[in-house]
């Protein structure tokens, strides 16, 4: 009993550490996108800017689901262990290599081309990793603890994001912004190699999944998992149900709670760089244990309604949450109720371009209630008599929140990450139980990566687009709200609350 207990924890830690590193590798590219684009994709070089878009878009949206198919097939034919060992090596190798690629200034057009290729390998590897890790852990788990054990894998995406942000902030803090932009940004990429070597060593010592080994010894593994998964009606209808009734909604809740929230408070509310990151980091750290809690709870109460409740709460509360973000950073309103405590000496600059003169006056102001901000007043005048009439615009940036509001923001982000833990904590066990062992890796990986990569990954792009068309800062939320609402309806109507009794014999599954 003690042996099997320690064995399952070895399985969980080996799988989780590897998956954590893969997420870390994937996120550092995103977190350092601005610096990377200057190093490899200068905007004035047309084709390289194009490759930059491809690196960001294609890696997430096309290559991830494609990786799910490639590595899923391999995992169902060769085995789980060797496949997710391969994805780990590919991910770690390509991340390390990005840290070594000379910049555009040194090797020209080859630089963005190499980085694009490495980024595509990253996306491909990520597409293959998750399904392997979740399947591997689930196939080692007893039926009544499958949700609990697989939920450890579910913490890795959030922790990968947190660790990537912490490593970047620590390196930047130690080197200073200039050295960091010059060469220091390479360090987080290079660190990946050490982490991957340790993780590969741990994974090498693990045995193949017992369910897959049994199937293999009996000669019952699938010879063509892609065909079996997507051309047999019984499996295809479950792949579609998993996508439209679970992973689609989970993807948008995940990205809204962790990425859109951070982007909104930094870019729309204009909270200063450090505070906006710390708010999200603290909220994620507080919420992370709930992945385990909801995974555990799903073993007792079923997976379906925990996941769907998370989606419904997102649908109902996103608007008031984001409205509160806006209201609490509305300088015009806040300044009415609090006097100015200190203000810096105004700094004025004038610049002329294309017959237009712009005079900007910048001042840092701190109010009595602890709210601070940088005020910039721009006076635009046309030097051409026939030009546009002069106009004045005031903008408020680098806002600093008073402690009460700061912790209120942490709470609001925490609530959103709590929804993430509800939809994401039980989903690995849910997906695993939906498909038979012989095609599980393939069948569960594709809906997962379409749900997360495509539906979730498009949250920033589509939300920004909706804001541009509507003019309302809250309108971008309609995309995750509508997708989560449709997914909730499909999930509530078509999924069963019962989870499969035995993962080996679940071919008739969920109805």
């Amino acid at each position: 009993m003690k042996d099997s207990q320690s064995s399952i924890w070895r399985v969980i830690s080996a799988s989780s550490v590897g998956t954590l590193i893969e997420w870390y590798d994937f996120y550092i590219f995103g977190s350092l996108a601005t610096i990377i684009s200057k190093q490899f994709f200068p905007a004035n070089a047309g084709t390289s800017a194009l490759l930059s878009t491809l690196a960001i878009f294609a890696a997430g949206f096309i290559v991830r689901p494609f990786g799910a198919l490639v590595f899923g097939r391999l995992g169902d034919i060769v085995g789980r262990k060797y496949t997710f060992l391969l994805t780990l090596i590919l991910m770690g190798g390509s991340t390390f290599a990005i840290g070594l690629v000379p910049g555009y200034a040194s090797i020209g057009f080859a630089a963005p081309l190499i980085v694009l290729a490495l980024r595509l390998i990253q996306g491909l590897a990520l597409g293959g990793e998750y399904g392997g890790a979740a399947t591997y852990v689930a196939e080692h788990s007893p039926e009544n603890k499958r949700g609990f054990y697989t939920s450890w894998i579910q913490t890795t995406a959030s922790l990968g994001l947190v660790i990537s942000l912490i490593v970047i902030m620590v390196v930047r803090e130690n080197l200073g912004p200039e050295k960091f932009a010059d060469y220091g940004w390479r360090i987080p990429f290079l660190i990946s190699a050490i982490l991957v070597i340790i993780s590969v060593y741990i994974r090498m010592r693990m045995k193949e999944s017992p369910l897959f080994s049994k199937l293999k010894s009996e000669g019952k593994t699938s010879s063509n998992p892609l065909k079996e998964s997507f051309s047999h009606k019984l499996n295809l209808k479950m792949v579609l149900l998993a996508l439209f009734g679970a992973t689609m909604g989970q993807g948008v809740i995940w990205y809204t709670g962790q990425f859109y929230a951070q982007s909104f408070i930094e870019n729309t509310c204009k909270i200063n760089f450090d505070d906006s990151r710390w708010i999200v980091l603290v909220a994620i750290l507080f919420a992370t244990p709930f992945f385990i809690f909801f995974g555990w709870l799903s073993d007792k109460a079923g997976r379906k309604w925990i996941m769907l409740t998370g989606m419904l709460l997102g649908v109902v509360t996103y608007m008031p949450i984001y409205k509160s973000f806006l209201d609490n950073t509305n300088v015009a309103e806040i300044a009415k109720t609090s006097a100015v405590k200190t203000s810096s000496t105004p700094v004025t600059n004038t610049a002329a371009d294309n017959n237009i003169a712009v005079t900007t006056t910048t001042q840092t102001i701190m109010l009595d209630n602890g709210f601070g901000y940088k005020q910039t007043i721009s006076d635009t005048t046309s030097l051409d008599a026939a030009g546009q009439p002069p106009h004045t615009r005031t903008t408020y940036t680098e806002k600093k929140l008073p402690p009460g509001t700061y912790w209120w923001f942490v709470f609001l982000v925490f609530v959103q990450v709590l929804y993430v833990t509800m939809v994401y904590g039980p989903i690995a066990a849910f997906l695993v139980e939906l498909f038979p062992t012989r095609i599980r890796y393939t069948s569960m990986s594709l809906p997962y990566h379409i749900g997360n990569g495509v539906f979730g990954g498009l949250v920033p792009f589509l939300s920004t687009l909706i804001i541009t068309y509507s003019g309302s800062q809250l309108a971008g939320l309609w995309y995750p709200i509508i997708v989560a609402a449709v997914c909730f309806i499909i999930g509530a109507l078509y999924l069963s609350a019962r989870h499969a009794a035995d993962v080996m014999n679940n071919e008739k599954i969920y109805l």
Partner: protein
Amino acid sequence: MTFLQNLLNATRRLLGIAWVLLAPFCIYLIVSNALKAFDKADKAIAAAASDTAKAAAEAAKTNTMLQWGIIIIIFLPIAIGLVIFGKYAMAGEYNTTLAAKNKTA
């Protein structure tokens, strides 16, 4: 089978029509938005005052086309999947059957 289960099955079948119709509607939305974005990019090129601004606007248009091209390519098969899902729902493939209930009970 109880009255409620029959009602649920009927709702599942009926909503199948909604899923079949939702897919082409989504594709229509995506394509029409893509066309609007291309049009906006064309206008930006036409309005560019200098060669530098024109080059930047042209690069922006290429990026816009690439982004929307990827979105259309990736959403088309998903929309087809939604139609198939709707058809299965209409055919009662997701309905609770007595046999399935007995098997999982």
